[in-house]
């Protein structure tokens, strides 16, 4: 009986070793939990599927950026805290390229009117170029100075986009604009129309309609999230390949000891610049996919918060592991980003709170006389604020208790061959060559 149990245990443990199993298991738990939460909240089927779709969208986008950051920090040891800036460059350039040349109606500013695929490539290239501009002079700096430079760059981008001077400008006689603080309206056709106009898509709409009762809009959103998952898989594959290639081994060598890598004849600066540009371009791509289907974008979307979210996701998953990055972004979205709001809704389902006091003082004062109800009510009223506090505390807690995250403890050696000594040739090992 007991051997049977240990047997199953061992089998489960070996199964757990596979990354695909880990991802499936954790995501299965996340989706199941949210489906149950949806049921508990009395959502209809389409509401539940919609909740899961939104989760998928968020996890996919954050996952892409986390993977790109993992390429920077996890593999190469480049400390980038200007993520929001590179995402902003990608999205804004794409939007400015794609907007029609004729600013009619509420469209405010003119664009170049390029087809969407070209605009996306343009945005990705621009984000990569931004990375190059930062990397060439700054990469030789100490890690903390480099970090400050990247966050300053991100703020320069954000403030530049916000400024009135660039709200509308002309470059070589072409009218363009960032829209300033009021933002930019995406008055082009749905970027996903390439897919939505396919014959097959109408049957997809019918299918989701009969399965979940989705309308065409929801079906499009679902398809969009599925496309994002495919892109995420692609990026995962790309970075996984990169990290296992000779190029990736040099990156790991740089992370472990840059001088040693140099002494082996590797031009580490070249490698660092290349990998930084690649990561920034991917961040730009994620920035584009994040918001280019919305009606518009404002610079507010690219506050340093975004960078902070991605770092939490990376640390949860564990720097240096691509699987960890995807898991980290899943757990971040499920627990820290969306979790608190759903928790609040669940509690409100069970308990009806009266009017909350308006101020903190009004909630604390009754505690002195033993009445904690106003404080609880105030806490719930201000739940969105507390969610951010929770994120900060979570990051501090992780850094204290588990800085290596879920999967960061894995040894990813920089060698191409396994470094474990084979068991059958221990005759000469450790004894020198002339023992016989």
């Amino acid at each position, binding site marked *: 009986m007991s051997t049977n149990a240990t047997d199953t245990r061992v089998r489960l443990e070996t199964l757990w070793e596979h990354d695909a199993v880990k991802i499936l298991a954790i995501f299965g738990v996340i989706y199941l939990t949210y489906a149950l939460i949806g049921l508990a909240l009395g959502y209809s089927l389409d509401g539940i599927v919609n909740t899961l779709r939104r989760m998928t969208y968020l996890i996919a986008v954050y996952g892409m950026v986390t993977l790109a950051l993992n390429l920077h920090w996890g593999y190469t040891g480049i*400390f980038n805290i200007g993520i929001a800036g590179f995402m902003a460059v990608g999205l804004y350039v794409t939007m400015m390229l794609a907007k029609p040349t004729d600013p009619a109606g509420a469209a405010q500013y003119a664009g170049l009117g390029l087809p969407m695929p070209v605009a996306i490539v343009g945005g990705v290239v621009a984000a990569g170029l931004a990375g190059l501009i930062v990397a060439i002079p700054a990469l030789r*700096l*100490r890690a903390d100075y480099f970090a400050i430079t990247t966050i*300053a*760059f991100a703020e320069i981008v954000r*403030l530049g986009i916000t400024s009135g001077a660039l709200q509308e400008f002309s470059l070589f006689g072409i009218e363009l604009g960032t829209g300033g603080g009021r933002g930019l309206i995406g008055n082009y056709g749905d970027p996903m129309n390439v897919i939505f106009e396919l014959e097959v898509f109408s049957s997809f709409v019918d299918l989701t309609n009969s399965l979940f009762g989705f309308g065409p809009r929801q079906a499009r959103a679902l398809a969009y999230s599925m496309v994002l998952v495919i892109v995420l898989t692609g990026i995962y594959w790309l970075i996984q390949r990169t990290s296992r290639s000779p190029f990736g081994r040099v990156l790991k060598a740089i992370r472990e000891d840059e001088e040693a890598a140099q002494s082996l004849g590797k031009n580490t600066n070249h490698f660092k610049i290349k990998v930084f540009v690649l990561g920034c371009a991917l961040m730009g791509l994620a920035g584009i996919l994040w918001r280019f289907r919305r009606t518009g974008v404002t610079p507010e979307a690219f506050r340093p918060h975004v960078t902070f979210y991605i770092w939490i996701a990376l640390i949860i998953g564990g720097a240096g592991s691509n699987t960890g990055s995807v898991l980290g972004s899943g757990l971040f979205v499920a627990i820290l980003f969306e979790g608190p709001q759903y928790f609040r809704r669940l509690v409100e389902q069970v308990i009806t709170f009266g009017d909350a006091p308006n101020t903190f003082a009004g909630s604390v004062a009754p505690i002195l006389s033993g009445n904690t109800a106003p404080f609880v009510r105030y806490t719930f009223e201000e739940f969105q604020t507390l969610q951010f506090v929770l994120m900060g505390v979570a*990051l501090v807690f992780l850094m204290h208790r588990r800085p290596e995250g879920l999967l960061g403890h894995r040894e990813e050696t920089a060698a191409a061959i396994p470094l474990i000594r084979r068991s059958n040739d221990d005759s000469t090992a450790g004894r020198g060559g002339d023992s016989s």
Partner: protein
Amino acid sequence: MTTEQLLTLVVGLGAFLLLGDLFIGILNGTYSISRVARYAVEGTLYGLIIGLAGIGLSMTYSILNFANFAHGDYVTSGAFFGWGVTYLVAGWGTANFGHLVLVGPQRGVGGSQLEITITSTPVAIMAGLLVAGVGTALFVYLIDRIAYKPMRGSGGIPLLITSIGVAFALRYLIVFVYSNRTRGTTSGDLPSLDLLLVDGWVSVDAHDATLIIAAIALMLGVHLMLQRTKLGKAMRAMSDNRDLALVTGIPTEQIIRWTWMIGGGLAGSAGYLMVLWTGTIDWQFGWLLLLLIFAAVILGGIGSIYGAIFGGLTIGISMHLSMVWLPGGDFTTITAFLIMILVLMIKPAGLFGGKTTA
């Protein structure tokens, strides 16, 4: 010629051209003298605040060896602590205790109703400044105990990441307690000194003067503390070489505690003075100030308090003078960040270089 020398040459040439343009522009009347002077005065005042807050950041950066991203939120916390006391003293009895100590989280009695100015309510402002300093010092010590002490031996980067988490938690805790409303804290009725400068007026009001006096007094205090006291000597020794300080018998943990408290106290005072000067308070002004403080500290050279003061003034003045060429004020912060990045490129050790808290 190395890249650095080339960059230095380009930057030097650029600075020379700008100053030349400014000089010629003033002489031939393109730029109004009084306007340039007003920018210079505003820039100096702003620079004093940045410099004052920068001293603490510079000290912890060199002694604990990490860039503390929570420093900006220490500035905000100090301002709220201090202004709560100022409201209490100035408005005792006019509104309930909670409303006053939370600096008026809701509409109602505020700075203008309480008629808070340095001339009409000097005691309230003195008390507020004192509490801002002492309160923040204790608060920062508490944060160190909770967040940083458990990872004292870690490298600079894990500590930096932790401090980002601390900053985030602290900022939204401030929103939770004090609300996210931006409010006025002083009444506009102030005596001021107006100087006629060729083509217009340059005015310095009583709050500007208070800021100058308080900031300089605090800076002088830190200078004396570092140079004349045993604690100061120990701090300088630690920032030079921590291991050596430890084997010499300097109680390093105690010195770290004092460093946090002094740095925090200065940050809190800077926040308080900033609110006195601008007349408004909100939950994220310290965070927005943080990168400027970093710019000042890096410009001056990490570890040097005189560098931080000098860097603060340079950043403040160049930010405001940039409006001569780039009107509207959209580019002041961008100017400061670009200066910081340039300094990092050319002289990463800062102008006052070296790791000495002196």
